[in-house]
């Protein structure tokens, strides 16, 4: 099969009015750079002569997108109402013979630098030969050498501290939560809460009927607010 790839960096209320030319050029340069690097990764044989798998190539492409603060993922992620970043990721493949789990989701992450790498590791481990065998611990070659860690078994969604504990055991890079902070997203977060407050006051002044804020902290007709 001829290897192919497509990537996205988000969708929503994106219109020429909410995407000025200089911002459009920023996204254009970033997306074309990432798609070119990822296509090259997909086509170039690995040191052992084999061709990269779809799993490794998709993980590589999303890692580049997570590292670019332009996008709502990894560095540059949006904030919750409480001003923290809670990251989510997932991965799934069509071929069930190699990884019977087929798909994995991770959520509630606050310190894993590249959430997609954790999803990929969870798909590769604790899955292919342990599905349904309920093996409690797994021998893992982690950053500190061989470790016995709770096995991810055939689970397809892991959340919060348990997921981060496995990320650490697998030797994935953990960062201080401040790594994800960017000024643009912080200001978007503050503007959203202020918009909601202003809408609520407007609404309760009887202009819209009390208790039904016309705007939300998560969406605006005037700008592109990442919806997730």
């Amino acid at each position, binding site marked *: 099969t*001829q*290897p*192919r*790839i*497509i*990537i996205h*960096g*988000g*969708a929503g*209320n*994106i219109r020429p009015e*909410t*995407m000025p030319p200089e911002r459009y050029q920023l996204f*254009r340069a970033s*997306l*074309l750079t990432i798609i*070119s690097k990822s*296509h090259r990764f*997909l086509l170039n044989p690995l040191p052992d002569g084999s*061709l990269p798998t*779809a*799993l490794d190539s998709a993980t590589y492409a*999303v890692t580049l997108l*997570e590292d670019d603060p332009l*996008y*709502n*993922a*990894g560095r540059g*992620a949006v*904030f*919750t*109402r409480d001003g*923290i970043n*809670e*990251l*989510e*990721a*997932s*991965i*799934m*493949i*069509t*071929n*069930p013979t190699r990884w019977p789990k*087929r*798909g994995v*989701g991770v*959520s*509630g992450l606050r310190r894993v630098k*590249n959430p997609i790498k954790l999803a990929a590791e969870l798909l590769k481990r604790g899955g292919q030969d342990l599905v349904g065998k309920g093996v409690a611990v797994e021998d893992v070659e982690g950053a500190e050498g061989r470790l016995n860690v709770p096995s991810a078994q055939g689970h397809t*969604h892991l*959340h919060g501290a348990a997921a981060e504990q496995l990320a650490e055991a697998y030797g994935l890079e953990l960062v201080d939560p401040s790594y994800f902070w960017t000024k643009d997203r912080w200001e978007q977060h503050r503007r959203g809460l202020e918009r*909601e407050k202003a809408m609520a006051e407007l609404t309760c002044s009887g202009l819209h009927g009390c208790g039904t804020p016309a705007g*939300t*902290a*998560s*969406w605006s007709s005037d700008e592109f607010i*990442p*919806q*997730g």
Partner: protein
Amino acid sequence: TVGAVVVDAYGTVCVATSTGGLTNKLTGRIGDTPTVGAGFWAEEWLEELEGQKAGSSSCPAVVLSGALKGLVADCLSTPRMYQLGSSSPKRVVTKRAIAVSGTGNGDSFLRTTAARTVGAIAQFGKESGAVALTKVTGPGGELQRSAGDRWGKTGEGEGGMIGIECIVVYDGDGNAVESRSEILQDFNCGGMLRAWVDEQGVAFMRVFRKD
């Protein structure tokens, strides 16, 4: 949200998606990106033509009797039947593999299990991946309908998807003889940031429908 869908030289399709979630979401809210079938989906299945049962990815590749001497000319359209010196036409078995990654208002993707719905329309509705994806996330599709009268007021129903469909055709001895893949993409809102490489290796980037 960011995503990538890749088909490799072995015909496996993989979807990877990552996000910070909905701006100003409630802390603890889980969105569609890590929820199987909502923001992402990947599956493959066998399709035997002419009345034989549609297989699923777990059933073995059906080995057809006798070797096919022709190939399906364009495996993205309905394969032609081949008479191989006998009265009854032979059957052609194709393996279809589809993976999609969603982005947009996650709670709407969750309510409609949007990604799985694309796979189901393609497999059970016998539609191409492109038609199935547009039926869910294209203008006026399932996702937009799920917003009801809140469409255009709260961001509900807004979103887009990218994907890849790969079809492999097997000969009478169960050997893969031809494969073709197609890039899938559509959205129902103002724009979707996306980039892809076509079959000639040319890179494209788009935000709107016609930029």
